């Protein structure tokens, strides 16, 4: 395994980068580097040696060849909205921003594909094909700002992945530059490609295996109709059972979200969505499809919710009311941020049947650590976002919150789940990887890494822990509700 320490000659590196023709934008002054010191996980900050902003694939190739020759770490960055510190700079490395790659290269309505540069924003793809009645399905909550290159690197999900899958299910081809500066075309415009599924391997590889410089995504027809129901329960267990009952009935909702009492109260105080604040849990269920299908499913889901002991079931009258139902859920993070000076957002996934046990344990941990918690939950696919409330100014609270979060993630692994459903490992969950994978499995990951980047220059220290490292736990830390990119929705 390669070392994580590098000693590049900064001046030599700058001279080599300046010799690239046409020269890419190179930032070297401290005040220019400052905006790149962190991504969406602002608890971790570092200044890179240099920031480079190329705008052609050839420049990316030249930059990587130079870094390879001079043994310089390379950290790729899209919009910097990631929540796990995947784009945290390396102090001895360059920060390679793909922000100038903002062109939509081709839209092919016949094939239902769009080929775009990596810096194109997720939502911009859907906006560009809207007139064709098509859209790009994965919709991470930061979709207004996050880039498709970052989405591929993180295998981003969103509230609709229960029905439409993650990024890996919705792309056909990428172009990737290796650390040696070679340009690889991975996948194709056909539905499958010869050889190993490198497309799957690269998706979610967190910038560890190569730099994504082009992406071809699949487009889907916009559903004819979308409908949203809201159901309230006097018991979280009943709400969990209702989720199972809907899916057992053969219905796959487009989205199925749950919030517990503390999250409901916080969201209602913040967003005034008309949520029943006395409820122990609410479910939001979004159905989409053809007009006829949505009508049929709406009746069935309504009946299931009633027979699952919902204290109240509401169906949105129109798109405006549906948007209000969603508003509360989508503002859960900032709403909780107002309750407490700081919070930690966890991102574990569990098999849904263990929800009662996991929620009960979270309540017990909450008492044990003396810290409150609010739970929001992508209930359909078992992805939990417990928000642990604490005050970093109180001695010991940060450490208690970290320990609390660590216990939640360990529990997720124990019940057969995972430490990260959609935010990625990055810097944040590097230690929890040790709870999920044993040393043989981690060694296999390192061997995969070495096949593409034997010297460990791409995003060193992220995603896969060294075997020596398996000790502590960390989590997303938000101070005073100040999220980087506070303008973005987070849910």
């Amino acid at each position, binding site marked *: 395994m390669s070392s994580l320490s590098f000693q590049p000659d900064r001046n030599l590196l700058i001279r080599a980068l300046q010799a690239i023709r046409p020269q890419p934008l190179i930032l070297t002054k401290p005040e220019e580097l400052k905006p790149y010191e962190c991504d969406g996980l602002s608890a971790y900050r570092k200044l890179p040696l240099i920031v480079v902003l190329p705008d052609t694939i050839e420049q990316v190739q030249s930059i990587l060849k130079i870094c390879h020759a001079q043994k310089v770490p390379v950290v790729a960055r899209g919009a910097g909205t990631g929540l796990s510190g995947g784009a945290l700079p390396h102090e001895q490395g360059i920060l390679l921003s793909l922000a100038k790659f903002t062109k939509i290269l081709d839209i*092919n309505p*016949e094939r*239902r594909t769009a080929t775009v540069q990596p810096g194109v924003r997720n939502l911009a793809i859907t906006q560009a094909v809207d007139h*064709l009645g098509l859209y790009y399905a994965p919709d991470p909550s930061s979709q207004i700002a996050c880039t498709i290159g970052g989405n591929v690197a*993180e*295998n981003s*999900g969103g509230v609709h*992945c*229960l029905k439409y899958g993650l990024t*890996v299910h919705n792309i056909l081809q990428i172009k990737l530059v290796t650390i040696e500066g070679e340009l*690889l*075309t991975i996948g*194709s*415009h*056909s*539905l*499958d*490609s*010869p*050889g*190993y*599924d490198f497309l*799957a*391997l690269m*998706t*979610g590889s967190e910038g*560890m*295996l190569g730099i994504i410089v082009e992406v071809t995504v699949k487009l889907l*027809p916009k*559903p*004819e109709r979308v409908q949203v129901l809201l159901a309230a329960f006097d018991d979280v267990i009943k709400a969990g059972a209702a989720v199972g*009952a809907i*899916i057992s009935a*053969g*219905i796959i909702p487009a989205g199925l979200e749950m919030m517990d009492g503390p999250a409901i109260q916080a969201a209602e105080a913040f967003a005034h969505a008309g949520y029943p604040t006395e409820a122990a849990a609410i479910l939001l269920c979004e159905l989409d499809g*053809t007009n*006829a*299908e949505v*009508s049929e499913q709406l009746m069935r889901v309504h009946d299931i919710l009633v027979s699952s002991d919902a204290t109240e079931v509401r169906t949105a009258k129109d798109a405006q009311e549906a948007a209000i139902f969603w508003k509360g859920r989508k503002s859960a993070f900032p709403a909780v941020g107002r309750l407490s000076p700081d919070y930690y957002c966890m991102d574990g*996934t569990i098999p*849904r*049947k263990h929800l009662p046990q996991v929620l009960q344990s979270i309540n017990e941990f909450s008492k044990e650590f003396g810290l409150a918690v609010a739970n929001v939950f992508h209930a359909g*696919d078992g*992805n939990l976002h417990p928000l642990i409330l604490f005050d970093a100014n109180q001695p010991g609270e940060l450490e208690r919150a970290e320990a609390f979060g660590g216990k939640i993630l360990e529990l997720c692994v124990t019940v*057969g*789940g*995972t430490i*990260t459903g*959609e935010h*990625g*490992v990055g810097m944040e969950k590097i230690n929890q990887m040790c709870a*999920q*994978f044993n040393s*043989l*499995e981690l060694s*296999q990951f390192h*061997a995969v890494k070495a*096949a*593409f980047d034997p010297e460990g220059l791409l995003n060193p220290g992220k995603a*896969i822990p060294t075997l020596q490292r398996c000790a502590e736990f960390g989590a997303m830390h938000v101070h005073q509700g100040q999220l980087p990119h506070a303008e973005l929705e987070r849910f």
Partner: protein
Amino acid sequence: MTGQDRSLALQAQVLAAYSQGNALTIQGGNSKTWYGNHLNSIQGETLFLAEHSGILNYEPSELVITARAGTRLSDIEASLTAEKQCLAFEPPHFAATATLGGTIACNFSGSARPYLGAARDFVLGCKLLNGKGEILQFGGQVMKNVAGYDVSRLMAGALGTLGVLLEISLRVLPKPETELTLVKALTAKELLQQANAYARLPLPLTACAYVNGQAYLRLSGSAGSVKQAATLIGGEALLEPESFWLSLREQQLRFFQTEQALWRLSVPADTGVLALEGETIYDWGGALCWLVSDLDPSIIREAVSQVGGHASLFRPSTRQTQTTTNSFQPLSPELLRYHRKLKQAFDPKGILNPNRLYNGL
């Protein structure tokens, strides 16, 4: 559930082969032995997976099934059918003995593939033996999981050359409430154009094929939405749709009973009719073409590569006693180099199904 855990015995066999540097041929139900390269193949001992079988976990409300690799596909499908669920990628069996492990190793998917996904899209996790005899577990039983590289999906289509699959977790889906297949008399060109036009609309289309001068379009979903879409598409309702789709998937149609080579051409959806001499069937709304032809492989590969696709020699001509053609479209030199490095990472002595996918892998 019947079945047994043979993982330790399998591990012992891989460890022995690893220490000796001997090749192993991985065999599940022996239903697809003809698939892949046999040119330069080094057979060595056979690693038998069929007895390593049994469904380990299936809970319909979780939409996940976990089974040992040697479990018969038919057993898995029977369990799912009892709960009104299915493998939405409709894998072909090719023989009653087909196993889950072989299905995933080949990444075979049926007619629903363009609309619902391929085998690889439904893989959630796996347990495997790498070429060093280490038992490793990746992914899990949950849909959203981004911890570590996606090794389990990488196993789909690797033909066992990166690892011996021991257990696989798959996402399953509810069986559609209603299905209807419409038959229309169209030219292939017309059907392929219509298939793309329909795929741009929010219709419950789940299969679209062109066989013997007829277009077959399958609709799946709620009764109301299937009826509504059928009115739009038109054509006659097919009387025994399930047997038609089964005979296409299992290659039981007369078209497939041939002495000539059977080629599988995977092409972009808007390719249209390919100008290649031979008999053809189109599936996947035109993105998959089966070609029966004696044309020179290089002509087929060149033509398909021109349109952005790739050609696999699915079954060689039975007239030739010895195959001289690689089964799969050659990779670019750069990609092949990384394939070799990845193979090294999983199987450093190259003992797992050597050369079955490409020479040197």
